[in-house]
């Protein structure tokens, strides 16, 4: 009896949240499709009079080459995801499944490390990366970001490992499998869904990392990630927002795709921590 009203109110609420959440992105999209030079013309149009791809051609062309920054980001985030998941899975397996003293303390210490503000590590990290000769290089970004991603992924994976059944693991141990084999061939495959959602979160996290990327890149294009490059564009071309918008849209493609395709994994990953409190 209250059905139609409920449906209507639901639609209205969804529309209101969409307006709040998507307006920014929508405005960037519209601007990126306007002919450069007309983006500020009044009255403001909610959809361009004619769609122009000129800005996309510009930001992909010489002088901009936003694709380089996006490629850098893809390389960094992929490498960080693989590296951090591997290290975190090892640690999480020990914490969740092996018997030793101080396990809660170990996990607490790892979590505390994850709370440290970036500003308190940035200067020595810069000096360290410089002495390794890795300034303005992708490895210089990948290595610290792996460490930064360990706390969150260890937390999520420990929660996941803790909920897995013990039978297979015990059987493999009875058969005399060495510990690493038990971890690698029995536990990791079982934890695949947990690894996946932790992986998506690590990828998104390192994609958006800024302070280290800004400091290590030294402003040179070789190691600029997408966020650093976009900030540079937006400061250099304050009145060419059609170009900047096109750059932003392109750099957000991987992020938006990940969220749209794996919305479930993202939300499950994020709530996995809080559900266990």
């Amino acid at each position: 009896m209250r059905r139609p009203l409920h449906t209507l109110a639901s639609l209205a609420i969804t529309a209101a949240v969409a307006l709040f959440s998507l307006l920014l992105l929508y405005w960037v999209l519209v601007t990126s499709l306007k002919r450069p030079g007309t983006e500020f013309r009044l009255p403001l149009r909610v959809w361009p009079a004619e769609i122009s791809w000129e800005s996309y051609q510009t930001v992909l062309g010489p002088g901009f080459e936003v694709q380089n920054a996006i490629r850098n980001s893809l390389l960094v985030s992929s490498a960080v995801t693989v590296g951090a998941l591997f290290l975190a899975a090892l640690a999480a397996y020990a914490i969740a499944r092996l018997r030793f003293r101080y396990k809660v303390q170990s996990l607490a210490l790892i979590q505390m490390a994850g709370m440290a503000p970036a500003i308190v590590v940035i200067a020595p990290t810069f000096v360290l990366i410089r002495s390794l000769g890795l300034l303005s290089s992708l490895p210089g970004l990948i290595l610290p970001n792996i460490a930064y991603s360990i706390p969150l992924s260890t937390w999520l994976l420990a929660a996941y490992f803790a909920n897995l059944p013990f039978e297979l693991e015990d059987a493999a141990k009875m058969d005399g499998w060495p510990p690493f084999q038990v971890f690698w061939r029995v536990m990791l495959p079982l934890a695949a869904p947990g690894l996946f959602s932790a992986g998506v979160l690590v990828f998104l996290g390192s994609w958006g990392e800024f302070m280290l990327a800004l400091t290590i890149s030294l402003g040179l294009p070789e190691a600029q990630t997408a966020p650093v490059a976009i900030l540079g564009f937006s400061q250099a071309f304050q009145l060419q927002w059609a170009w900047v918008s096109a750059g932003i849209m392109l750099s957000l493609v991987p992020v938006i795709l990940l969220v749209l395709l794996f919305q479930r994994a993202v939300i499950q990953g994020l709530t996995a921590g809080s559900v266990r409190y």
Partner: protein
Amino acid sequence: MRQRESTIALLFLAPAFLALAVFLFYPIVQTAIYSLFDLEYSTRWREAPFVGLANYRAVLASREFWGSMRFTVLFAVAAVTLEFVLGLSMALASFWVIRPLRGILRTIIVLPWAIPAIIQASIWRWLFNTDVGLIGALAVGLGLAEKPPLFLADPTLAVFSVIIAYVWKGAAITAIFLMGGLAMVPQHLHDAAKMDGARAWMRLRRITLPLILPTILVVLLFRTLDALRVFDIVYGLTGGGPGATTDTLSSFAYKFYFTFVQFGRGSAYAIITFLLVMALSLLYIRRITPHLRFR
């Protein structure tokens, strides 16, 4: 046997702890060491004069420090409050709407969280631009202002602008965490209360909120920690300006490092920020670890 298992555990933990040691524990200790030396234009602390706590005294005596401290705390309180109200509303809505809309609504809620903060800062900076920004144009169009306000140049408006930009992303993550808590509220409690004729507002106050209180506390702590560390949004949106009115502890410390090139003073600043955040994160850790159940 037990001895052997703890050795194995140590081996499994070692790689992660090595990575944390090199890129988190060591830099924190090194920053603490920097903070005790008079370091300018260089980080070679072994050759620099040792000054004890002089850097801390200088920082604590400076007006800029207390200005950025005041702004950071004000920012954290305002942002976390707003985030919580918006986040809770969105989380509740995502359970209330008709089933077919739930997945869509959740995707829409998550999206702002996934967009890098610095890119959001760039977008907001443009939207708040006085000459070409959408928000100023809307304010004029709706008759709220005669000409576009100076969002980022006016000290009061700049504070609001930074908070709005930060909350836009923060409300999303707050909502997601709260959804996790809401998912655990048993449906039968709701149904029973409904049968007893309890109104929606009563059910929210007497059943839902008390049951998700632990989640709420953790979310508030977690978000406060994040707000106290804020850097990206400020750096990209106002750069701390006008003057230093929107400088947070982190953004001001970054200026000390890479604009003024005063590593000793900057490190003292960073360590103070660190201690403040750590005090809260101890509370946070204490809150979340007792509930852990491992073998």
